[in-house]
């Protein structure tokens, strides 16, 4: 074996080690950032069992929009609060689409409220208020999606509330009219 003169220490090729080092750095960098999940904060309406009627917040009919979540990711919506069963609001059916979906309906209502404010029919304090009422056959996906639409469209006030029997009747009437099983 050929032995070279012992001048200094022998050179070791460090490239593979450094390669491996950087590979590991990349791996750990990615896993650290990924391990922190993203969340969506929601604020439910404050509810007290023995709340008096006049303590509950009131919503004006003209600023309100109600969104009903139903089965198969279908959405029914109407403008107003629909408290009057004798004068049923006009229910429209839509879904989570980028075009002509619930987003466009929200934007349209938002413009309408803006228009009413500038026309002086509503005061500047009035804001678009959306009530989300999920039916029993909707899923968590629907709820998160619709709440996300609130953020996407910068809806000032929105709340998730229990669906009422009146609303369920609206849905079944509309389903029957459209021949949906």
């Amino acid at each position: 074996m050929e032995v070279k003169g012992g001048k200094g220490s022998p050179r070791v090729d460090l490239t593979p080690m450094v390669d491996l080092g950087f590979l590991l750095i990349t791996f750990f960098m990615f896993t650290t950032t990924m391990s922190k999940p993203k969340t969506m904060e929601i604020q439910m309406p404050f509810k007290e069992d023995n709340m008096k009627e006049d303590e509950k917040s009131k919503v004006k009919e003209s600023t309100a929009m109600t969104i009903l979540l139903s089965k198969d990711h279908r959405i029914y919506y109407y403008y107003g609060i629909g408290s009057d069963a004798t004068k049923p609001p006009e229910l429209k059916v839509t879904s989570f689409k980028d075009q002509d979906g619930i987003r466009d309906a929200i934007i349209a209502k938002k413009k309408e409220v803006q228009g009413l404010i500038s026309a002086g029919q509503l005061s500047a304090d009035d804001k678009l208020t959306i009530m989300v009422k999920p039916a029993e056959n909707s899923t968590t996906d629907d709820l998160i999606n619709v709440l996300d639409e609130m953020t996407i469209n910068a809806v000032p006030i929105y709340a998730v509330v229990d669906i009422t029997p009146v609303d369920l009747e609206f849905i079944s009437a509309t389903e029957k009219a459209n021949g949906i099983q």
Partner: protein
Amino acid sequence: MTAMCDVAFLLLTFFMLATKFKPQEPVVIRTPASTSTMPIPNDYMLLSLSKDGRVFFSIDNLNVREELITEISQSKGLNLSPAQIKAFKEGGSIGVPFNKLGSYLALTPAQRNEYDKTAPGIPTDTTASYETNELSYWIKTSRYANPKLRIAIKADGDAKYPEIQKVIATLGHEKVFRFNFITDGKAVPPGTALATEIAAGKKE
């Protein structure tokens, strides 16, 4: 070269120590997607809701876990042994009623993972009375151990609304009205109000 190597390995050490690996999950949960980019709060309890409506509970702070299980063991008369308490402290999510907690914690970690696939979940009955709602008791007791605990819900997108409503109603009963849903990322649709806000630098 040497200097770069030094820096590289320093970074490597840092990331290795800083990385926290995901805890074992009892069931597979497909979280819904949202455009929100808010990171999860630091101290939180995690309520997982599986597709079939089973609820699992977990906290990642080990000290709170120990305090919590000691308290529950006493107040519910479970008489857990130190080994069972240790098993809870080092374990993951819990998805069994109180009366099965002792036998569940006596299992080995591998057996527990197997059991979790068919675990009944924490009872979250909101119709009868909150006496039998054990999720309410878990939340109450852990917030007593650490009042700053935030609540994160990891719900499966396919879980029916009444299931998630039970969890939300239980939180409402505990006077918790603000909580976080864990969601997957989604791109912000262009041309919307949110996209404009982000472009204007108002929101991240």
